[in-house]
C-alpha cells in the first residue's frame, strides 16, 4: 500500500503547487491597473528531503517580471511626469488567462492521478472481499 499512499501525497503536492500558482495569477490580474506593479510568476522545484528527491513538487520563490512597465498617458494623474505619462503595470491579461488555463489543466491532471490511485487501491482490495 506504500506506493498508493505516496502517489496520493505526490498528487496532493502537485495540486498544492498549482493552487499557489493560480493565487499569484489572481494577484497579477487584480493588480493589472496598479501603477508600478511587476507581474509575479511562480517557479516550481523538486521537493528534497535529506538531500534526496521525494518525487513531490513545491512552489519555489516568486519571480518578479523585470520587463519594462507600460507607459500610460494621463496628464491629470498624480503620478504623471512632465510628458503626461506614468508607469503602469507590466501585466498582460491575455498571458495571465493562458497561464491560468494551464494551471487549471495541470490541477485536473493531478486530481485525475489522485483519483486513479484511489480507484486502483480499492479494486485491489475488492479482490480480497470476494
Amino acid at each position, binding site marked *: *500500500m506504500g506506493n*498508493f*499512499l505516496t502517489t*496520493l*501525497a505526490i*498528487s*496532493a503536492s502537485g*495540486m*498544492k503547487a498549482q*493552487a499557489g500558482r493560480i493565487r499569484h495569477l489572481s494577484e497579477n490580474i487584480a493588480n493589472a491597473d496598479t501603477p508600478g506593479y511587476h507581474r509575479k510568476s511562480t517557479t516550481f522545484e523538486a521537493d528534497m528531503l535529506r538531500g534526496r528527491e521525494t518525487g513531490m513538487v513545491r512552489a519555489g520563490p516568486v519571480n518578479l517580471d523585470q520587463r519594462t512597465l507600460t507607459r500610460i498617458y494621463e496628464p491629470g494623474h498624480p503620478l504623471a511626469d512632465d510628458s503626461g505619462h506614468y508607469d503602469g503595470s507590466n501585466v498582460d491579461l491575455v498571458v495571465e488567462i493562458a497561464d491560468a488555463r494551464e494551471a487549471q489543466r495541470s490541477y485536473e491532471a493531478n486530481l485525475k492521478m*489522485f483519483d486513479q490511485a*484511489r480507484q486502483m*487501491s*480499492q479494486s485491489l*482490495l475488492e479482490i*480480497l*472481499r470476494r
Partner: protein
Amino acid sequence: MEIRTSVAAQQYAATRLATSPKAESGGTSGLTKLASDFAATLQAGETTAKAAMTGNADPHSLVMALAQTELAVETAVTVRDKVVEAYQEILRMPV
C-alpha cells in the same frame, strides 16, 4: 512390511523438528510494524483534520490525509475479515 516401533518413533522425532515453531520467526515483528504503520497513518489523518478545522492546514492536505486514512482502514478491515473468515473455516472443520 513390518514397521518397527522404534523406527516410527525415530521418524516422528525427526519430523517434530520441522514442525516446531522457530524462536525468531518474523511474523510478530512484521505484524507489529504493520499495526504501528496503520496507527501512524490514522494519527496523521486526525492531526490534519484538526489542523484544517482550526484553519492551519489547506484542503489539499486534508483530502490527502483522509484518503490515506480511508485506504489504511479499508486495508486493515479487509485483511481482518479475511483472517477471521479463515479462522472460522478452520473451526468448522470436523475433527
